[in-house]
């Protein structure tokens, strides 16, 4: 089981309230990602759940039991830290065994779980090494192994991939997703990277300045961002936001069109001058200037498109997939 409920949770550091009253339900087995720009309070929120920080007010309930006043050790949660936080003076085996040793698990059972975790995480050959002798990815796996053997109610991940290089990051992302599918244990994952959020989450919680901006599945957030912030944050490259007369035509203060919903056409309602074009093979991202609509418009076009810097092109937006926002920046249904 791993059902976590936050009721009107707040957190203040001195006079500064970093988390205003916040409610959130996390269901058993869900993969929940907290995403937001740095300083949005996502890590603080995770640490409140972990019990590494006290809530200022409000309640945290884990599996129906009030956990607000429980110390971290009693919450049956396991955490994987950004720096991995491995014990440098212990071998990999001892690192993984540590939580079980603390819980008084029998030697045979410890051995059994260590072997299981090592096998699942490809660590069998490294069990007697020290963390200092491992690569970043291997350290990450040890940290995960240490979390798994506790058989926790939920896993907490605090930006676990941000210290890895890009190639490893993609691999570990898949491994963690795979692990979630296999264990079916609740996972809460904090990241500032919306790609990680989109690819891994069952449910994304978008945070800004301690506020929840929107909660939903990746596709819900992609299709129906509740406000301008979410619209701008989710999706890569970023959604084009257009204000002024063009928005007025659609009865909105601001309209948003994702780069993939603008096509390069022979003739079209919009036009502009091609600036930099990024050829990725599969796609080409065009940065179009002088559209009179917004500063630079990003357009995703086919991979084989042949346009050059300085060409004037016509663009046609996909009006069905246009997002409309009012003066407060809220979505107009």
């Amino acid at each position, binding site marked *: 089981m791993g059902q976590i409920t936050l009721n009107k949770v707040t957190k203040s550091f001195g006079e500064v309230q970093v988390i205003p009253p916040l409610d959130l339900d996390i269901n058993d087995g869900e993969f929940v990602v907290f995403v937001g720009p740095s300083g949005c309070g996502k890590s603080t929120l995770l*640490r409140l759940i972990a*019990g*590494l*920080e*006290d809530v200022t007010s409000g309640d945290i309930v884990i599996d129906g039991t009030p956990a607000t006043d429980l*110390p971290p050790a009693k919450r049956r949660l396991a955490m994987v830290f950004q720096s991995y936080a491995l014990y440098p003076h212990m071998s990999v085996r001892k690192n993984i065994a540590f939580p079980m040793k603390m819980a008084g698990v029998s030697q045979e059972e410890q051995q059994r779980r260590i072997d299981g975790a090592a096998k699942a995480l490809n660590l069998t050959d490294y069990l007697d090494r020290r963390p200092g002798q491992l690569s970043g990815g291997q350290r990450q796996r040890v940290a995960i192994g240490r979390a798994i053997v506790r058989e926790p109610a939920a896993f907490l991940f605090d930006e676990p991939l941000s210290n890895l290089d890009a190639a490893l990051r993609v691999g570990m992302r898949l491994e963690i997703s795979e692990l979630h599918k296999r264990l079916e244990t609740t996972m809460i994952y904090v990241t500032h990277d919306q790609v990680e959020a989109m690819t891994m989450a069952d449910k994304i919680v978008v945070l800004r300045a301690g506020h929840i901006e929107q909660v939903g599945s990746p596709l819900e957030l992609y299709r129906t961002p509740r406000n301008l912030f979410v619209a701008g944050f989710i999706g890569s490259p970023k959604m084009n936001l257009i204000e002024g007369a063009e928005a007025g035509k659609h009865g909105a203060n601001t309209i948003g069109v994702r780069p993939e919903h603008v096509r390069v056409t022979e003739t079209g309602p919009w036009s502009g001058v091609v600036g930099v074009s990024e050829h990725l093979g599969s796609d080409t991202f065009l940065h179009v200037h002088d559209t009179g609509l917004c500063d630079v418009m990003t357009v995703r076009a086919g991979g084989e498109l042949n346009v050059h810097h300085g060409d004037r092109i016509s663009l046609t937006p996909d009006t069905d997939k246009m997002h409309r926002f009012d003066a407060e920046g809220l979505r107009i249904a």
Partner: protein
Amino acid sequence: MATQHSRAAARFMIAPSVLLLLGWMLIPLGMTIYFSLLRYNLLMPGNNPFVGFENYSYFLSDPTFLTAMLNTLLLVGGVLLITTVGGILLALLIDQPIWGQGIVRILVIAPFFVMPTVSALVWKNMFMNPVNGLFAWVADLMGLQPYDFLASAPLLSIIGMVSWTWLPFATLILLTALQSLDSEQLEAAEMDGAGPVSRFFHIMLPHLARAITVVILIQTIFHLSIFAEILVTTNGGPGVASTNLTYLVYAESLLRFDVGTGSAGGVVAIILANIVAIFLMRMIGKNLDA
């Protein structure tokens, strides 16, 4: 990272250290203040009447007190001057590329590990002794009269001995600080046309500021209480020529057994040390981010 659990634990964990130090400070301090108001001599048993500030007026009006004050200041100031300036120069020299830098370093810091009584006796007998000391022999070689250091210039001699112990300390710390100076900074300054002198004053000295502060602070703490060197060389003499405040209070209390006056002197010493300490703590508070 802090929860109420951990904060409560933290208070509990700090408590022994704080309580012990608080006890160590307050109990004897209270007693010293109390004794300082009594007529209390261990050689004259009986009741110890309350005499108010009599001990203080006795202690402060004694001309020895002024001498002791002056000697204390000269001692601290003299040693600080020699060790800080000498330490900077030595550190700069050793920091240069030289052969056997490691061995030079080991030789230079060695005196710091010599206990005060050993250092004092070795200097007193084997070097400064006007008959058999090495200095006398050197003077003789040069056709000079041997000089009786401890009789003729007791305070200066003690300043010399203490500096011998503490020059290595200053050198070691300043050298370490110098070695942490990014050499690219110096190279950049050199490219910018700074000569050796301006490199020293504009880059090295500011970099050393923190280390110099610390050298001064730590040494002041120790030098205000210099005792062993005086006890085994001059016993404060001749007369009171090398008596510092610490030695004076010791003499009142444990040689003349006048607890009352000794305590009054102790209180005076504490007040003076606190005046110095306030300055120093200001300085170090700025330089040491806790």
